[in-house]
């Protein structure tokens, strides 16, 4: 909520938004703050790409939820590696 350190941090570092739902609040918050947004992911897309996995628990992830979290983490990691390889300036 306008925290100066947080605002400075997202403006001075490359940011990847990871949103749970189609409202994409992380991405929109970053855009509102004029942050350096370099990529964004949506969990709904990961769910669509992995229809065999059906997470059902919200508070504590079940096995399928953990698998999806790992898939998403790997996608984010690949993006980070790609950005670093391209030498996108921070």
């Amino acid at each position: 909520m306008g925290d100066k350190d947080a605002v400075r941090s997202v403006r001075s570092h490359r940011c990847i938004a990871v949103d749970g739902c189609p409202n994409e609040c992380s991405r929109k918050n970053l855009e509102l703050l004029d942050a350096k947004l370099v990529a964004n992911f949506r969990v709904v897309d990961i769910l669509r790409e992995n229809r065999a996995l059906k997470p059902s628990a919200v508070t504590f992830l079940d096995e399928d939820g953990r698998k999806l979290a790992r898939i998403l983490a790997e996608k984010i990691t690949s993006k980070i590696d790609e950005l670093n390889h391209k030498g996108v300036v921070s």
Partner: protein
Amino acid sequence: MSASEIGVVSCSGECCVEGTISRIATRLVLEKLRPNNTVTICLPLFSIGEKGERMFAKNFPTVAVDGCEKKCAKNAIEKYSGKTARSLIVFDLLKKWKIENPSPRRELNEEGVEAALKVAEEVVAAIDDIFTR
């Protein structure tokens, strides 16, 4: 104050375990302890100006469950919708209960879940107090 529903607004921070505890505690309240008369307000959605979330917080009592002293949940609600009915800070509660380093922040261990349950009970006490007024 007469209320049929209460909004519970949790911290969405990832920088400390107190944020994780605040989210798990809020889920426990919504799913298990008071499922019939609580809703959650999504803090990131609220902060980008979603009208439904802001209207709800204007018209119904809210309990802010913040992880740290920055109190982002409380400050956001009070900036855009009105005074929160109650405000809890997990960091202060853990200090009061002398719980140190309860858990890694990525995934709560048994001690972290226990701390989250204690925080959830505090939220429930706040909710019950609001309903009896």
